């Protein structure tokens, strides 16, 4: 046990650094992914057949693009996107270099999660607001998105956890993070204590995120 705490002393700084990197990667790419994914989810819902802005072309193309991106494993996305990343953010290394692939990976996922959350909203309520002479865009925002909030929060919780998993591969482009530490020290250098500590930290983070998500969702639900 003393040995274990020695290890923490030795590797504490490194693990702390890695935790920060993971948080950075997750939060930045999450925010961008929501900014892209939520509108796409809304678009998927309102352009579907028999909905307010029924548009077969937009709906089908969006569907196909999302499905294609979602079929590509993150590690392949990471490498195929390298040239684009370098072009857009100027570097393909470090935390900055991994944001673009993480967003490309997560935004379509969020779009799908938002789509299913928005589809759950009771059609009757939307109709009642239409009957009151309220603008469609107000209905989308003040009724559809509002009523879907509990499911949206749960969806984002799921997306965050998936995102944390994806960041484990960020080490391959030198972005660091907890996953990278666990891999390098645990697997390559065979120092299992470091690996155990990082895995425990990951477990705690994921438990915490899921619990926070559940609490926020049930608060938003009002029952």
């Amino acid at each position, binding site marked *: 046990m003393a040995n274990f705490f020695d290890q923490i002393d030795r590797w504490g700084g490194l693990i702390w650094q890695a935790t920060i990197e993971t948080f950075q990667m997750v939060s930045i790419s999450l925010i961008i992914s929501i900014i892209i994914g939520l509108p796409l989810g809304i678009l998927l819902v309102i352009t579907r057949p028999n909905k307010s802005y029924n548009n077969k072309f937009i709906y089908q193309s969006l569907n196909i693009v999302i499905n294609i991106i979602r079929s590509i494993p993150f590690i392949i996305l990471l490498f195929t996107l390298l040239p684009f990343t370098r072009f857009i953010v100027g570097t393909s290394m470090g935390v900055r270099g991994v944001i673009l692939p993480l967003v490309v990976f997560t935004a379509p996922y969020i779009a799908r999660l938002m789509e299913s959350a928005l589809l759950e909203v009771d059609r009757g*309520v939307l109709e009642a607001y239409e009957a*009151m*002479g309220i603008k469609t865009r107000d209905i989308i925002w*003040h009724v559809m998105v509002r009523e879907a909030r*509990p499911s949206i929060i749960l969806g984002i919780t799921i997306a965050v956890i998936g995102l944390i998993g994806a960041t484990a591969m960020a080490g391959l482009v030198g972005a660091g993070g907890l996953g990278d530490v666990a891999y390098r020290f645990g697997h390559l250098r065979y120092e299992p204590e470091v690996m155990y500590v990082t895995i425990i930290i990951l477990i705690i983070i994921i438990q915490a995120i899921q619990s926070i998500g559940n609490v926020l969702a049930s608060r938003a639900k009002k029952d």
Partner: protein
Amino acid sequence: MIELKNVTKKFESKKKGHAILALKNVNLTVNQGEIFGVIGYSGAGKSTLVRCVNFLEKPSSGEVIVNGQTLGKLTNDQLRQARQNIGMIFQGFNLLKTANVYDNIAIPLKLTGIPASEIKARVEKYLNIVGLSDKKYVFPNQLSGGQKQRVAIARALSHEPDILLSDEATSALDPETTDSILNLLLKINREFGITILLITHEMHVIQKICDRVAVMENGEIIEQGNVIDVYSDPQTTTTERFVSSIFPSDIPNEIIEELAQRGPIIQLTFVGESADQPALSMLAKKFDIHSNILSGNIVQLKDRPFGKLTAHIQGTKAETDKALHYLIEQGVKVSEVKVNG
């Protein structure tokens, strides 16, 4: 106030070339200040009909004229304006689950451009009218069905519309709650002069608050008129079935057959004043007959009583004929009861 002219609504079915005609050439006029009921069995096209009145459903052909405006000719913005003058309540209440009672009324007011300073006063006024002032900060899932419908009514009224549409607003409620909601609708109609077009499959709703009624079947209006006329003199079997649903007086065929050998079984329909008169006992005094009541019921329509009595008359053919004649002279509608089917 509301006028439907030759309105037809066709729904294209998923299977190509197979369309459902939910409304066939419907003509209907609802006058200002009246409560007009549309009754029909499931699938008759009632919901489609009311939904055409605020263009939630656009007719395939024909015209919908509300307050002098032909809805089909309006731009989207004008249609939204027109809709703000037509309130609607639904079977499923359709409240925001994530908003409390106050916000359920305040949010639509805000979204229709009512100034913030006026919103609070309006919410309080209409919550007071529906009797829910003490539930302002309660969420819908903590309310009973009747209370939810009251919130929905307050939400509709808060826009101060001229017209209220009701799509089976009481169908999810128990009889007592139904009555209280119907009383509320009656009060709204009387106090604010709001014209109400409601649809239902319950005769009880029509009889309690409607001035006029239309009966629908297979997308067509098969009968319409004053409630009292339609009740007392139904022209179609569907209407007859609806009327008999409030007079559950089916006499078994065996009994009819047996009694009919000893004199006619007649059904007397009383309307208004004639409902108060002791017609049968007068009959026994004036003519040499015996009468035996088999069943009877009297109901209160919106503004007058309406009753039906089934009786067996025994006596010579000549005397019973004279007696029946007398009844008809007294303004009582008489029909002979025959074996069913």
